[in-house]
């Protein structure tokens, strides 16, 4: 069997199959990125936070644009070389294209790395501090101390579980104090946690034990709810009669149906008699199960740690809430001990008070009192210049987004002398932001704000397209010779189709670059 028009074009459409296919595929890609750009516009016009402008470094994006344009030219030349039957030229051009793709991804990776290691703290009053964590400082980098977004809990003596909800997965946060400089090292595999149950027996706390307890509890609960359902059914006629009585005087009165009430009462009597046996069996079953495993009798299970108290280091996303003595997980596990290490260390480089309730009393000044005067001096200067330039806004300049951007979002570097700034950026000078002062804390990853979310989504998807395209083009380069010998036109067609995809990837970037980096 042979599919027609794989190499030659069909006369009436003027296209071979793969070319029809790739144009249709590109049409769907247009809709994909169309959807993304539409979402971008929607998020931007609907943002209730200052949409970041000029926050990305333009240079890497600019270089990447050049790289992609260059690769577009070479992929075309590769195709033209095949058309001219110059296989050597094809190889050279294709190789350059692939190198461009690699360079693009490296630059992209460099940009991403920078963002993942840049942090932002939104205070309770809306003020924002951006900066780096001292542990990210090259001299100071040690993964074990990399715990700014984690809360440590030491001296844990009591653990409480809810057998209806909890799993033992909190144990993955267990740490041991290995040394002074490594206060929270991973607990070695096979670490055994022994606990004492309320009835005095000791057990090893692990996944399986919790699972078996949960199962017993669930079995017990099932029988209990069987019983509850029967009891409810017995009570239900009385309840219905009460509701009927109430409805007589309700907003939408329904006349009392005496016949129905009588029927219901008879029903209740009958039910009570007929379910007696069943209720007895169920009650016996409950007693038996409670006897068999008294630990799993109630949902809440309080355990005492046997031996040395435990230490945990928990990622902030993993627990629901915490206070000075407890960490409460989402699945209702409660660890009781002493909370430590809950300040966020930061070497700030940007102060952003655009969303601050009152810049004068911002929480930022609690940590950087020395920057308060320079900040407001700078604000005065900006305001002066702004009013001079836009005299019509002399009274309402505070509403102007440009003014806000200039006056309220300031890089600390601009406020102080160079040596002072350098000193501020030293790890030892990091401020420790109390967790109670912050509303939200994140690196510049998708969680930072919808702006960064859509930045990462769009550039990430674009990057995946680059990788996908490069794999296909690389495949043509590596395996092309055999096909070139057999049917050079077929290889040229394949490269043309791959090239069309590659140009589309370039085309998307042509929009992405100004949209994210410049506008």
């Amino acid at each position: 069997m042979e599919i027609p028009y794989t190499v030659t074009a069909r006369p009436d459409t003027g296209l071979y199959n793969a070319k029809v296919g790739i144009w249709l595929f590109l049409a769907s890609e247009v809709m994909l990125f169309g959807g993304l750009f539409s979402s971008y516009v929607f998020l931007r016009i609907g943002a209730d936070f200052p949409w970041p402008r000029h926050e990305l470094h333009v240079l890497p994006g600019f270089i990447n644009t050049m790289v992609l344009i260059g690769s577009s030219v070479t992929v075309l030349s590769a195709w033209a070389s095949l058309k001219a039957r110059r296989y050597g030229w094809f190889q050279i051009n294709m190789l350059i294209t692939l190198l461009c793709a690699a360079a693009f991804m490296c630059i992209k990776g460099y940009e991403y790395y920078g963002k993942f290691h840049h942090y932002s703290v939104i205070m309770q009053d809306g003020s924002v501090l951006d900066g780096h964590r001292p542990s990210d400082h090259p001299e100071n980098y040690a993964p074990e101390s990399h715990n700014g977004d984690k809360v440590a809990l030491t001296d844990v003596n009591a653990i409480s579980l809810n057998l209806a909800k909890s799993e033992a997965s909190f144990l993955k946060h267990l740490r041991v104090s290995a040394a002074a400089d490594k206060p929270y090292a991973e607990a070695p595999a096979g670490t055994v946690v022994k606990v004492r149950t309320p009835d005095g027996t000791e057990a090893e706390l692990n996944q399986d034990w919790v699972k078996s307890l949960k199962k017993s509890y669930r079995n017990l609960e099932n029988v209990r709810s069987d019983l509850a359902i029967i009891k409810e059914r017995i009570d239900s006629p009385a309840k219905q009669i009460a509701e009927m009585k109430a409805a007589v005087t309700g907003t939408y009165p329904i006349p009392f149906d005496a016949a129905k009430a009588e029927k219901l009462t008879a029903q209740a009597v009958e039910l009570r008699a007929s379910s007696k046996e069943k209720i007895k069996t169920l009650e016996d079953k409950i007693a038996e199960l409670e006897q068999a495993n008294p630990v799993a009798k109630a949902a809440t299970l309080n355990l005492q740690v046997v031996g040395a108290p435990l230490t945990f280091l928990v990622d902030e996303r993993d627990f629901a809430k915490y206070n000075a003595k407890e960490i409460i997980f989402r699945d209702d596990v409660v660890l009781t001990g002493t909370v430590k290490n809950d300040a966020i260390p930061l070497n700030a480089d940007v102060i952003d008070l655009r969303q601050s309730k009152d810049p004068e009393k911002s929480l930022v000044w609690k940590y950087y009192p020395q920057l308060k005067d320079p900040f407001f001096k700078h604000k005065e200067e900006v305001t002066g210049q702004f009013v001079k330039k836009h005299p019509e806004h002399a009274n309402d300049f505070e509403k102007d987004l440009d003014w806000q951007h200039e006056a309220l979002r300031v890089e600390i570097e601009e406020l102080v002398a160079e040596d002072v700034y350098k000193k501020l950026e030293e790890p030892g000078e990091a401020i420790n932001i109390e967790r109670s002062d912050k509303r939200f804390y994140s690196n510049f990853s998708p969680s930072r704000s919808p702006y960064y979310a859509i930045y990462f989504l769009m550039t990430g998807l674009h990057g995946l397209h680059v990788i996908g395209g490069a794999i296909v083009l690389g495949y043509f380069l590596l395996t092309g010779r055999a096909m070139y010998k057999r049917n050079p036109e077929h290889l040229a067609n394949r490269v043309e189709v791959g090239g069309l995809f590659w140009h589309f990837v370039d085309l998307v970037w042509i929009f992405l670059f100004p949209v994210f980096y410049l506008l």
Partner: protein
Amino acid sequence: MDHSTETPAAHGAHDSHDAPVDLAKSIRLYLKVGGYLILFTCITWAVALIDFGSHALNIGIGLAIATFKVALVSLIFMHLNHERGLVYKVLLFTVIFGAAMMFLFVLAYLDPIKASLTN
């Protein structure tokens, strides 16, 4: 279309079984267009540094340049200038639906229900 820009390679998109292709000539064209693209990228950056008085204007100019660049890529690099009706039809509907999507998203956001209550 100007005859000088009708490259043999591009012409090959028409008919796959034609005479040998003038490689140097087509590569010259691609380099020239690539040069324009780089030039306009620089212009985009430069223009973004100038304040035209309103964000909308800045965004409009930036997007206009980007659209021009996209036109260059699709017409010359992707040989759209040599394609026949079918591809145009597909792309036309795609662009209509894409534009409708963006326009109606924005319209739906900018026309909230409170606007009709105050009227």
